[in-house]
């Protein structure tokens, strides 16, 4: 791949028609909730965009995010966009290894200082000086701080990088933290999800290539265009919720008829992501469509929010013993107060003084 090629040149070389390219631009614009008038701007910007340098750091993670973004797409326009960035460092994907890989990172950092895009997946262990995860002898913590310093912007891919994710789950033995817990003073965008939807990352990259900035974010640092609606609000099973038709088990009549999975613990109402609209595997399906409730994987600390199979309206703790204690204590206290009242009554009765007619007549 020639580094000075523009995206337009590269797409034409790959046999993508002008029509196909504009269709992609229009889809991206509508996906990002941009007005149709922006389509030519996107097309023009992408057409002439030079390859931005991207450094991808994988920390305390399972590689699911990389799998999602690289393997879930057959060669598509999105795939080419992804190819088009200059992925200068990604230790899972790059051919180089060991010192050569680290050298590639250092060169990319020096040559593009202040301009490269930093993508992070995985959380960063902080406990005990961050020894729980190291690459080439460097702790994740030190590497993130070093690379973030010269980055134009940071994209935290996946719930681990965005909010700590699974490693951050109680009791968090490695002191795992998110990118935004550690880095400040840089624009940080969170593409949460376990793993996140591929279209969301290509959408964000397209936005970055077009405007040179990150898109509008919600209160959790996620692009509003994709995380603006809850799964529940966009769910095709929503009418069943409204009608009060629920699957009670995973193999009952309701489950077979595709009724709402709320009672089986679906966290769709409190989960914000684009699964219900963008879907997965080239817009084929998403968990709810496959018959399993949403587990809320794009929300912070989703592992510690009660059972995946407990309905949202059900308390997360089992208060059985506390309750029994409270009942016994309440009954005992009530009886004690009652006894005291009776005792007072008896004392008062005994303390009554006999009043004679003479007393009443008085002097």
């Amino acid at each position, binding site marked *: 791949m020639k580094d000075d090629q523009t995206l337009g040149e590269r797409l034409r070389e790959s046999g993508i028609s002008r029509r196909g390219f504009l269709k992609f631009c229009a889809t991206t614009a509508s996906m990002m909730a941009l007005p149709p008038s922006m389509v030519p701007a996107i097309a023009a910007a992408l057409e002439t965009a030079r390859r931005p340098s991207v450094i991808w750091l994988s920390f305390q993670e399972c590689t699911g995010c990389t799998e999602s973004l690289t393997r879930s797409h057959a060669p598509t326009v999105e795939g080419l966009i992804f190819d088009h960035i200059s992925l200068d460092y990604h230790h899972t994907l790059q051919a180089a290894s060991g010192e050569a890989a680290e050298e590639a990172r250092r060169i990319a950092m020096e040559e593009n200082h202040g301009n490269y895009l930093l993508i992070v997946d995985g959380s960063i262990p902080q406990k005990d000086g961050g020894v729980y995860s190291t690459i080439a002898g460097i702790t994740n913590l030190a590497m993130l701080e070093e690379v973030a310093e010269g980055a134009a912007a940071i994209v935290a891919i996946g719930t681990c990088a965005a909010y700590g994710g699974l490693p951050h789950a109680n009791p968090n033995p490695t002191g795992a933290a998110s990118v935004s817990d550690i880095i400040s003073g840089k624009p940080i965008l969170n593409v949460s999800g376990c793993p996140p939807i591929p279209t969301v990352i290509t959408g964000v990259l397209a936005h970055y290539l077009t405007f040179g900035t990150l898109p509008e974010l919600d209160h*959790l640092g996620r692009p509003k265009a994709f995380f603006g609606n*809850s799964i*529940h*609000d966009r769910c095709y099973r929503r009418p069943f*919720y*409204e*009608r*009060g038709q*629920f699957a009670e088990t995973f193999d009952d009549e309701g489950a077979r008829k595709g009724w709402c999975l*709320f*009672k089986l613990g679906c966290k769709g*109402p*409190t989960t914000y992501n684009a699964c219900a609209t963008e879907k997965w595997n080239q817009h084929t399906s998403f968990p709810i469509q496959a018959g399993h409730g949403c587990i809320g994987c794009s*929300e*912070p*600390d*989703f592992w*510690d*929010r*009660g059972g995946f199979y*407990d*309905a*949202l*309206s*059900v*308390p*997360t*703790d089992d*208060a059985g013993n*506390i*309750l029994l*204690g*409270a*009942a016994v*204590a*309440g*009954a005992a*206290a*009530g*009886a004690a*107060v*009652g*006894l005291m*009242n*009776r005792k007072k009554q008896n004392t008062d009765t005994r303390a009554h003084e006999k009043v004679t007619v003479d007393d009443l007549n008085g002097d």
Partner: protein
Amino acid sequence: MTADAFLSFARGTGFDWALTIFVFGMLLRLFEVLSLGRKPDLSEGRGSGVQGGLKTIVTRTLPRAAVFAREPVRIINGYVFHIGFLAVLFLYEPHIELFDAKMGLSWPGLPTGIINALGVLTIFSLLLALALRLTSPVLKFLSTGSDYLAWLVTLLPVLTGYLAYNHMLLPYTAMLAVHILSVELLMVVAPFTKLTHMFSFMLARWYQGYRAGHRGVES
């Protein structure tokens, strides 16, 4: 604190505390009343106390013609509120799921749209109840802070439930947390206000009915 953490607190620790106080408080109040006891009634009854007690539990649910004629609006509003509140509480599917999970009891619910409409009706009936209280000089004179507190903690769960379902005022996650917390507030306050009637009404009716039945008079 994020909305998710807020919701986790409401569903976890918050609920545990509220339920503990609710159970402790309610049993305290009931045992306090029961352990007071009564002097044994040695009189020979003219009628059946048990019959009178059972009858009164039912008849006190119905309005008396004379009272109804005097204040029809207040009485009808009382029915609207109680039926609406109980329907919203016990016939909304996510609420039934709570009882199922905690008590192993479940029953059929109503479609969400109907619950939503009943919720609106319940909110209006509570507003009307407050208006009636404030415009009646006698009732206003008799009202204490505890009465207004009971009204407020009853209104909040219905109102916040409506706001959460309809995505109003706050994002759903936060409003759901506020809704659950408002229910917890009700649970904490209930044993120490006149809201104890949710359990004691049967007891009171039975006692009054029994006494009247024993004496052979109308209760």
